């Protein structure tokens, strides 16, 4: 059976073999020792015709709850934000999505220009001097920041707030294993980092203090105060921030952060069951030559015309090999393009509006949900678009019951923090309506009764 993805016909194969001077395809495999050959066909499911395959895929996808089939209050690092229509259409242009990394700049100016725009927008939002072309996701961006802080300061410890997403902390631990960087936890007993306690942990061995704002519990951290703690000990401050919030919240760079990382999924990237995401990475100028990942810079061509290239490549693995600042090669360029088009669409005022609407609706939801008997806010600290509820019934069971009513109620925190077995993390984006929130509160009332 001919495949629609392979052009050569049997007749063409024969003619090509004739040019090569081989009698058969088999003759081209002479260098593979007989004992290394697979003597049977691969044990895979047989090929499906397109219509049958679509039916199969639709059946699989229908077994998942999604943000269309349910009203979603899920967050914890992946959010159901507004995605303007042009994004999907523009990234689907073959010139963008079928291009390779722009190693031949003259034939890649489209991609290079969009990355340069992306770097500019991310640097602006985070309040930093420079942003790279992307890392895989927020968690791996944080891990790279830890490695960079270690290399920049030549110090062996990183102090991580317990307010940082536990999944991010886990990824950071994986990356710090090889270089032997010691990770120390700073407590966040009241939903925000205890900076007085952190101050005792941050010392001459500390490469960086890491906080997240809003943090995993939804609470806002005092970035400026954390910067003082870090800088007093000669350590760097790394801030994990969600760029979609930075229309309203101050860029962490303006408050003293040395490196800002985060998850950019909210900037027009589909949730897609957790990936691909968009690892945002931005830093101060003095750290640029230690940065991981690709950087695009402006230059001129032979005729003096403006053009763009990958630059400062001596940091990277394909040049520096074992001494590279990072092993990253493939990044998430197309997700960065989604974010670029998103930020161009929302622009100066739209991004502010997204943040204002999310905040207003989240606060309304918190107020409304805590009118349910036995339900309360777990932490008193100010929050942004996400908050931690304490429930009178086991959150897992509440979530299951609410799913039957069409709500994805939130993330039970038991598996993330044993101290929060009775807690549910609820996220409210600008997409939720008052009617949905009211209905959710009504359903919650029944579920915990």
């Amino acid at each position, binding site marked *: 059976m001919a495949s629609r993805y392979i052009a050569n016909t049997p007749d063409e194969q024969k003619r090509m073999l004739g040019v090569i001077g081989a009698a058969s395809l088999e003759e081209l495999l002479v260098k593979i020792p007989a004992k290394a050959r697979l003597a049977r066909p691969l044990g895979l499911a047989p090929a499906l015709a397109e219509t049958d395959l679509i039916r199969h895929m639709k059946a699989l996808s229908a077994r998942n709850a999604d943000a269309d089939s349910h009203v979603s209050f899920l967050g914890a690092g992946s959010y159901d934000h507004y995605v303007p229509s042009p994004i999907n259409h523009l990234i689907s242009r073959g010139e*963008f999505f079928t291009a390779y990394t722009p190693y031949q700049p003259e034939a890649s100016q*489209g991609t290079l220009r969009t990355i340069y725009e992306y770097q500019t927008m991310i640097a602006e939002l985070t309040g930093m001097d420079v942003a790279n072309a992307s890392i895989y996701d927020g968690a791996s961006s944080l891990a790279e920041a830890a490695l960079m802080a270690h290399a920049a300061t030549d110090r062996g410890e990183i102090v991580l707030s317990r307010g940082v997403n536990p999944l991010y902390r886990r990824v950071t631990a994986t990356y710090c294993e090889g270089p032997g960087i010691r990770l120390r936890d700073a407590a966040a007993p009241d939903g925000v980092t205890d900076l007085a306690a952190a101050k005792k942990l941050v010392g001459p061995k500390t490469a960086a203090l890491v906080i997240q704002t809003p943090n995993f519990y939804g609470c806002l951290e005092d970035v400026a105060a954390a910067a003082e703690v870090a800088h007093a000990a000669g350590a760097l401050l790394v801030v994990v921030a969600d760029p979609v919030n930075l229309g309203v919240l101050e860029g962490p760079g303006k408050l003293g952060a040395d490196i800002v990382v985060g998850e950019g999924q909210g900037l027009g990237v589909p949730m897609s069951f957790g990936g691909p995401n968009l690892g945002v990475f931005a830093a101060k100028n003095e750290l640029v030559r230690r940065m991981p990942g690709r950087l695009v810079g402006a230059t001129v061509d032979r005729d003096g015309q403006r053009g763009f290239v990958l630059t400062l490549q001596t940091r990277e*693995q394909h040049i520096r090999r074992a001494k590279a600042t990072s092993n990253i090669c493939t990044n998430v360029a197309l997700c960065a393009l989604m974010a670029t088009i998103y930020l161009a669409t929302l622009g100066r005022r739209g991004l502010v509006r997204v943040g204002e609407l999310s905040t207003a609706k989240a606060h309304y939801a918190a107020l409304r949900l805590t009118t349910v008997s036995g339900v309360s806010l777990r932490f008193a600290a100010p929050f942004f678009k996400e908050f931690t509820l304490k429930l009178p019934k086991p959150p897992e069971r509440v979530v*299951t019951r609410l799913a039957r009513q069409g709500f994805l109620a939130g993330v039970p925190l038991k598996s993330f923090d044993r101290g929060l077995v009775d807690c549910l993390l609820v996220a409210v984006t600008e997409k939720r309506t008052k009617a949905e929130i009211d209905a959710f509160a009504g359903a919650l009332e029944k579920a915990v009764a």
Partner: protein
Amino acid sequence: MGANAYDKLIFELSSPGRVAWSLGEADVPEADARKLLPENYLRKDAPALPEVSEFDIVRHYSRLSRMNYGLDTHFYPLGSCTMKYNPRLNEDMARLAGFAKAHPLAPEALAQGALQLMHELAQDLAEIAGMDAVSLQPAAGAQGEFAGVLMIRAYHLARGEKRTKVLVPDSAHGTNPASTAIAGYEVVEVKSLPNGEVDVDALARTLDTDVAAFMITVPNTLGMFEPRIVEITELCHAKGVQVYMDGANLNAILGITRPGDLGFDVCHFNLHKTFTTPHGGGGPGAGPVGVKAHLEPFLPVPVVTKNGDAYALDWKRPKSIGKLQAFWGNFGMLVRAYTYLRTMGPDGLRSVSDNAILNANYIMKRLEKDYDVAVPGPCMHECVLSARRQKKLGVTATDIAKRLLDLGFYAPSTYFPLIVEEALMIEPTETEAKETLDQFCDAMIQIARETETNPAVNHDAPVTTPVRRLDQTKAAREPNLRWTRRP
């Protein structure tokens, strides 16, 4: 400047007051977010983002896209990158709401379709590579390498062995030594034979109880199958050394031979190469990693498991190396690769490698008179030529690459592998038709002729692209990494 000339950045289109977004009014009582949040946490001024219309955006990015050569518009013979056609069905399937709009932390009972897809894909990849288990979590090949090396490290440590070195051939991709170094190992480069093969005697002398792993690409980066590979893996195992296969070149061996059967303990897959997920101008990709049974306890968490008809995420794996990204992998890419596997089936996959090999050999044969062949064929899925003959006439691999852009082709990989002088690494893939290969070969032969008769045309190239050769030195010496308004 031609009709397609365009030199704008989105910021330069901004006109205060224009909007491209549509968000409703707040429908909740307390709508002023600024009263709900502490003032000192708030941004003082609105961010300096562009103010443009929706049509401004559509036209701007459409025009920018036309400044790219994509695989859809141009033959892309980039060696080692497997630039094969990206099926549109894959794109449609990845956009089904049940996949694209699924949240990673939805209750498992409401994510059974996604988990089933992951479970089946992992099993299929294990079968293709002859491995016992596969983790889909690594986001790209380099992260797959990193995970693989960390598993090897954990394995040795669990056996009470503290080995400190990893051997990597001098022909390896740059990510191999970089990933290994980040995993905490000293990287020892092993010299290849002039034909790109492993110097087995030299390797045997280097292997000792301090070596944790040998990392090697099969077929190698010269496009050749390593003839003594089984001997090599046995030699390594005799010294307790784990053997890692960089799976970048898997497109050459589907259904022909399997890394696991060759004796490899670990290998990674680039779903954005062999399994048709798009390259996206640099990513996202996906770099699943497969292991033999003895390394299975060390896989990243969570692992997708199946009990009866129910799929679940298993976190209770005390020996795991941990996590690589926040969630479970680049799921959107996994959907595309799964769709491709179900489209092709076992016979289709075998035919992929057969035709990829045929196409590469055809190119090598047609160009062998005009360029030096790095190693005599037959090759596998790619061939490496050297422009050393042209260089003597003053035309380098870079010049040839740039001239190809003018003749309507993207360029081969150049100056890689490092062990070949003026390397041109050409990988046509199975999805290209004979007439495209012929056009490309004709262009390459034309360039060889021009090198003898009119080298200036190669030095001047490219002249048809949106910009001409760019000043890389200026870019690095005076970094300009973000746009600022011209004063």
